[in-house]
Structures are given as C-alpha cells and as structure tokens.
C-alpha cells in the first residue's frame, strides 16, 4: 500500500554522496540568497544555473521535473497571478482587466516573488530526492540533535499515512452501521464523534505499545548510537558548507548596504 513513504530516490551520484548536512545547508543557502540578493534576476538565475543542473548531476531530473510540473509550477503560477493582479504598485499600466490595472511594476514584482517560491520549493524537493531521511536524522543526531526529537519528526512523517488509513477503516465501519457521511453539513458535524472517538482511543493504546516496542530495542540506551549507513563527511563537504555560508553572508551584506 504505502510502499513509498519518502521522496528519496536511491541513485549513484556525487550529490547522493554529499553529507546530509551539506545538502541541508545548500538548500537553505539557495533560499536565503534568492530572498536577500539585491539583484533582480538572482532567483531566476539560481533556478537555471544551480537547481536544474544539480538535479541532472544528482540523477534525479525525471522525478524532479515531475514534481515541478505537478506541484511547484501550478502553485507558483497561482501566486504570480494573484500578485500581478492585486499588488497595487507602479503606474506603468500595461493592460486593464475589468477594474484591475496590471502594471509593469506589479508584473515584475510578481515574477520575482513567484520565482523565489520556485527556488524555495524546488530546493527542498531536490534535497528530499537526494537525501535518505534516516541518514539525515542520524547525521543530525550525531551532531547533537536530541535523539527523541529526531524520532518524533521522522516517525510522524511515517505514521501520518497510517493514521489516514486507519481513519478510512473507521469511516467504513461506521458507515456500515448506517452512519450517513454523505449528507448535510449539520448531519456531518453530528457524525464526527463516531469517527474521532475510535481514532483517539486507538492512537493512545498504539502510542503505549510503540513506546514499549522501541524501548525493548534500546531506544533510551545511554550508549553512543551507531548507524547502519556510513554517512560520508569529506573535507570537500566542509569546504562546500563554508563556501555556501560565505555566499549567504555576502548576499545579505549586499542587501543591507547597497552600493
């Protein structure tokens, strides 16, 4: 059923070989630069010369473009239209649409903002596609993120689809008892308790059992945890990370002190 719970695509590429933290910093750097760089065309350039080429280098281009077309572009397109029509900036009116004036300034503004959003979402997508979630968590735990915190994040991501499946079963069971879930809003509100009750009670029992199960496997052991996967962290990773940090600082600096 839920065979693929993560975006991660296993491939052999230099990007996959990067340390997870390096990829997190790369993602954050791309976003920060896109939002802080004072030069108008920076976000567009980032998409064209950084993110798209990276998806090829990481050998995840097909998956990347599929996500881009299905989710990222429609969302960005919507944002673009909203801002182009409703952002009251500038007075170089290009065309009128009923009572709305579309100005050159608002178009430019909307175009940049939409592209910034594209950078943000596609950088994240790229990271998720090339980074194994358990490796990311192991690496962050090794660097001092509390183990419990990492567990909560990753298990929530996994358990949500399971909760959804369970909710579906509960709905089926109650419909089988004649509960009408297809009628009016009022009736629907009335039919909430037969659906939420079992979900909550069941989840409480599950949480307890799951706690026992992971405890039985030494989850709270005071020993230093090891990791099944070798998590690479080369000196090149460190160089890339520092390089990215410097670029971000530069971008912010240029934004704050315009020449």
């Amino acid at each position, binding site marked *: *059923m839920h065979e693929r719970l993560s975006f991660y695509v296993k491939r052999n590429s230099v990007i996959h070989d990067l340390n997870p933290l390096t990829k997190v910093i790369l993602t954050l750097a791309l976003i920060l630069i896109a939002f802080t760089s004072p030069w108008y065309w920076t976000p567009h350039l980032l998409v064209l010369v950084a993110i798209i080429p990276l998806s090829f280098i990481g050998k995840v281009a097909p998956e990347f473009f599929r996500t881009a077309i299905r989710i990222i572009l429609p969302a960005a397109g919507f944002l673009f239209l909203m801002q182009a029509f409703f952002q009251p900036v500038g007075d170089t009116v290009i065309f009128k649409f009923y009572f709305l004036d579309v100005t050159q300034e608002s178009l430019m503004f909307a175009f940049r903002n939409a592209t910034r959003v594209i950078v943000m979402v596609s950088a994240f997508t790229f990271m998720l596609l090339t980074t194994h979630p358990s490796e990311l968590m192991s690496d962050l735990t090794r660097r001092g993120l509390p183990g419990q915190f990492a567990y909560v994040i990753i298990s929530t991501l996994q358990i949500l689809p399971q909760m959804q499946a369970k909710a579906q*079963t509960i709905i*089926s069971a109650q*419909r*089988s*008892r*004649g509960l009408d879930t297809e009628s009016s809003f009022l009736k629907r509100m009335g039919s909430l308790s*037969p659906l939420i009750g*079992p979900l909550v*009670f069941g989840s409480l029992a599950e949480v307890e059992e799951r706690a026992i199960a992971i405890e039985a496997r030494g989850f709270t052991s005071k020993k230093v945890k090891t990791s099944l996967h070798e998590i690479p962290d080369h000196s090149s990773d460190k160089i890339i990370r520092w390089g990215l940090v410097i670029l971000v600082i530069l971008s912010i600096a240029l934004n704050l002190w315009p020449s």
Partner: protein
Amino acid sequence: MKIEINNLRFTYPTGLEALRGISLTIEAGEQVAIVGQNGAGKTTLVRHFNGLLQPTVGSVLIGDWDTKKYSVAKLASRVGYVFQNPDEQLFSKDVGTEVRFGPRNLGYSKEKIDELVTRALALTELSNKTETNPYDLSPTWRKMVALASVIAMDTPIVIFDEPTTGQDAVNVARIAHVIAKLRREGKTVVTITHDIDFCAENFERVIALASGQVLLDGPAREILGQEEILAQTYVDPPQLTRLGKKLGFKETVRSQEEFLNSLKNSIDASQSK
C-alpha cells in the same frame, strides 16, 4: 436475503487486481465461511456486499438492490458488517448507547430499538454490562459489544470479518452460539475466517479464495477434505478431518461426533471381518 455476485472484478487504485472474476450466489439463510490466505481477496469481496467497495467490472445484488444504486448507509439496513477490530468502531460512553447507534441510524421506532437492543445484549451476554464504558472492558468483551452493535440492526444478512482472532476458547464458543442463533432466525451469515476448525464446526458451505478467484466452493464436508487444493491457499484442513484421513476413514469428518461415529463404524467393520 439472497446475495448475487456476477462476474465481479475489482482493481485497487494502486493497480492491484484483488478480485479477478467472481460469480457466486448465496441463498437466503445460508451460513457461508470464506477461507484463504492473506491477500486472497476475502475482505475485498465482502466489502462489496454493503457497498464499501464498488465493482470495477460486474455487479453485486443484495436481494433486488444493485449495490451500485444504493449508499452504504442505505445498504446498512440489509447488510450488517462486524469489522475485525472492535476498537475501530466503538466510541460511546456506555455499551447500551453503543449498541443503539446502528438501529437508531436505520430510523426504527423507539420501541423497536429498545427491543432489538435488549435482545442483542442478551444474545451476546452483555445484559449486565449496559452501563459500562466499552473501553473499561477487556478486548474479548469489546469484541462482543461490536457483535451486539451490528446484530441489533436486525439485518437479514450479517458479515463477520475474522470473528475469532485473538479470542480465547470461551469467547469463541460464545461467538459460535451467536452465529447458531442467527441461523435459527433465518439470517444469511457470511464469515471470513482463518480458524479452520471454527469453520468446520459452524458452517455448512465453504468458499476458498486464492488470488482473487474462487478456488473451491461447496458443502463444508466436501471442501474441507481437499487437502492438496486447500494447500494452494495455505489452508490446512481441520484437525479432525486430517485425523480421519490419516486413519483411512472413507467419509470426511468435521466434528467430534462425526469423527467418533466414523471411528466406531470402522472398528465394528474390522471386528466383523
């Protein structure tokens, strides 16, 4: 009430073809057990009976109703369905309210609801637990509450999905008693079970499914003796059936009484020689 399944095929949105052409008729008042390994399509099949799933191809008729034309809530007046896990349906603060939920949804009069609830509680031996919160009961009793809450709907067809899983011997006997009572009332009972001894002792007709198709269908006595074919869907014949076979009995035995009779006959036969 009769169930008619015509060339039923069902494919999940994931592309998994769970049912691959099933045609069956279950007559009113029949007691049918459906057996087969995990993934054979048992639950997928019975979820078509009350419209929870709709055929990809073919049709399912409940009496004169085509399940395509009626909502699940409507079909609930003809088909009761006891889910495997009681914790996926119990929500009320006490057993009595829980059991009333189904009949109330069906819009019966208050008097009728009272009568049905009282009867269902008596049948499931819950009469003294009406005021108890279902979650204060042990899992075995919660199972009985789930049974009662469907039986109280007084539907002509009742479906049980794995009723004996996780139940001890005493509770299995209680569940068998409930099914026998439904039989006497003339209800159609369809039960999914992997408990083959329970199946042998309580059902007249057995349908074995394997990879979405009917592997065997017929009187329990005939089906349960077919060791090699049943093995295809990872079902072992009942214990006493296997024993009878090993002892060389000519007929397939299903219950203790049948076994002892056959044993006596074969001893008498060998002594008279």
